[in-house]
């Protein structure tokens, strides 16, 4: 894991001191809210529906035990004893008081964390595959590159006032777990003909009110060219992106309006100017960063305990079926800790649970934790013989829900329970759907299925790329939920299609149940997943299941 050098530490210290003084000046009346707001947003501090909210970056989703423990401390000391992990691998504290925020930022700095550029029209937290450095299908760990991008983009003078916010995601695997095609820039590691790793560069993806799948503007970019090439993209966007209309200011609109060909030509032209200016310092820096991400010293030893526990403990077997993923070392597994207990708030963890996860990371996972964009926590390196002990500890802390990738593993944005922008609630919708399918005990039979819920058109809950997407809207003063079908956030990315008229708050769970009953009737067999059935048959039979009355009317 990357450790701050003296420069990083001094920079964060200076920024925190500045912000402390700015908060003091706001409180004593020397700064108006209009003056203060951009300053607090630069430091991740929002004013939401009921309170302030502090959004803390978890760079590329990587934490260690000490950092997780510090998040627990912050949650208890200055918040209400919990934190909310988000779809951008951040953590949000929902109840800080303005006066306490400088102390919270200092506490974060103690463990080399900050909230800089988690808001505003800047380059935001660079996200990465949550299985980075562990996945069996990985070409290379993408996190050194993500860290290089973080250092380059933090306080980059040219990119502090972009037309709009800018999000970069990076994956080192052909299987895209980082939703790279729905980011302003997506970087997908590939190899050239000679086997050297580089990146496929995807530009102009995004969700929100105008969802777009990103366009590939470079099939293969050598690793050494990454920084000048990304700088070329952002600088082209900085000049070309629209500033007349907030809703048309993201790079996806720039790419859409000008065409990928023109953007490619402009980027290549700019890149040709920039490339010679990169003397190699960035590559020296990258080499230094890579040393921080050296793989842990994997231990070898028998894995019999794992097999024995699977044979004798059905609950463990069920958990290991859903929550484990293949590790590049066959004696190891990647264990995902579900923050989706049936009926719980997706992505929330109590301080106590954070400490349990910190302990488990230190004891059993080479002191590494990851936050996934699906709002779960990952122990990336667990020796299989330790899995029974890990499971037992998780079960004791209410963290052993066996539902990763299933219908109750729902992404939900905070929605109108917290967010000032929301048009409807998302959390209770997720809670009710998960509770219902938990009671039915059908989710393992239903199989892999991604439900994603957003409480407004900005789509923080990624509903466009959910197999089933739910979008909460305000229709004439009443919450109303639109369903989209067939979305996909992986390497086969697709934007879901709207199914039809929306549903009232109390109609949405029954609607999802009809949809699932319809799917179970339609699928060719238990192996055919929801999305596969949808792709085979198209939307029509799913719509018929959702809207039985209109089907009956049409038949009459």
């Amino acid at each position, binding site marked *: 894991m990357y450790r701050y050098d003296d420069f990083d530490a001094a920079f964060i210290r200076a920024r925190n001191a500045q912000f402390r003084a700015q908060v003091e000046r706001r409180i004593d009346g020397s700064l108006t809210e209009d003056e203060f707001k951009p300053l607090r947003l630069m430091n991740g501090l929002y004013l939401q529906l*009921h*309170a302030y909210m502090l959004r803390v970056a978890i760079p590329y989703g990587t934490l260690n035990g000490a950092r997780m423990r510090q998040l627990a401390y912050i949650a208890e000391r200055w918040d*209400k004893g919990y934190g909310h992990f988000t779809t951008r691998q951040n953590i949000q504290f929902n109840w800080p*008081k*303005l*006066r306490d925020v400088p102390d919270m930022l200092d506490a974060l700095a103690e463990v080399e964390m900050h909230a800089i550029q988690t808001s505003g029209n800047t380059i935001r937290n660079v996200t990465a595959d949550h299985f980075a450095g562990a996945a069996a299908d990985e070409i290379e760990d993408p996190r050194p590159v993500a860290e290089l991008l973080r250092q380059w983009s933090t306080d980059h003078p040219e990119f502090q006032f972009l037309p709009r916010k800018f999000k970069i995601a990076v994956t080192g695997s052909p299987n895209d777990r980082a939703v790279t095609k729905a980011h302003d820039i997506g970087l997908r590691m590939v190899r050239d003909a000679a086997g050297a790793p580089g990146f496929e560069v995807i530009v102009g993806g995004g969700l929100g009110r105008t969802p777009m799948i990103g366009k590939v503007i470079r099939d293969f970019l050598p690793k050494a060219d990454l920084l000048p090439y990304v700088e070329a993209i952002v600088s082209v966007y900085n000049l070309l992106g629209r500033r007349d209309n907030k809703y048309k200011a993201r790079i996806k609109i720039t790419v859409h309006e000008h065409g990928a060909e023109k953007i490619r030509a402009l980027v290549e032209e700019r890149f040709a100017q920039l490339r010679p200016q990169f003397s190699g310092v960035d590559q020296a820096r990258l080499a230094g960063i890579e040393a921080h991400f050296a793989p842990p010293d994997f231990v070898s030893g028998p894995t019999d305990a794992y097999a024995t526990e699977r044979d004798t403990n059905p609950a463990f077997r069920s958990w290991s079926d859903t929550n484990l993923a293949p590790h590049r070392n066959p004696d190891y597994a990647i264990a995902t800790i579900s923050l989706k207990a049936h009926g719980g*708030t997706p992505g929330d963890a109590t301080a106590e649970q954070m400490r349990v996860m910190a302990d488990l990371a230190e004891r059993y996972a080479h002191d590494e934790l990851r936050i996934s964009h699906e709002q779960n926590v990952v122990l990336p390196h667990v020796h299989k013989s330790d899995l029974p002990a890990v499971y037992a500890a998780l079960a004791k802390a209410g963290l052993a829900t066996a539902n990763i990738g299933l219908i109750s593993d729902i992404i939900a944005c905070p929605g*109108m329970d917290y967010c000032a922008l929301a048009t409807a609630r998302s959390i209770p919708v997720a809670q009710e759907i998960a509770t219902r399918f938990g009671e039915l005990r059908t989710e393992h039979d239903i199989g892999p299925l991604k439900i994603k819920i957003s409480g407004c058109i900005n789509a923080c809950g990624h509903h466009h790329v959910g197999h089933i997407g739910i979008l909460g809207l305000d229709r004439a003063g*009443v919450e109303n939920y639109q369903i989209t079908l067939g979305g996909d956030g992986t390497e086969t990315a697709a934007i879901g299609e709207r199914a039809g008229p929306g549903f009232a708050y109390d109609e949405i769970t029954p609607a999802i149940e009809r949809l699932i009953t319809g799917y179970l009737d339609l699928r060719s067999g238990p192996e055919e997943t929801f999305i596969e059935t949808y792709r085979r048959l198209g939307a029509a039979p799913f719509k018929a299941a959702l809207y039985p009355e209109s089907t009956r009317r049409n038949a009459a």
Partner: protein
Amino acid sequence: MSRQFTPKVVTANALIEGDVIYLTADDRWTRHHHEAELIEDHAHAQLRLLFAERQKSTVVGAYLADARRGRDGPEPVHFRETFRAVGPSNYPHGKQAGLIDVQI
């Protein structure tokens, strides 16, 4: 003829705590919606909003929200204002936790 005026309350967030607050008829800020002043004409609403907006070192983001007369005082009309008046639905936090009325 002018359009029928929908009654309003002045609401904002407290600068330090971030709490949702409402302006009362006697110029206090209350945490309780039903203690707010129910404003029933446009001109008075604008005056009260200006009064709120001038309090730059205590409140943030003052605005007029639709309300109606209820048994115990003004009640929210839109569900967003109902949530602001109560708190989130997933935890018993916010006003529903039983915050006592604090004058700021």
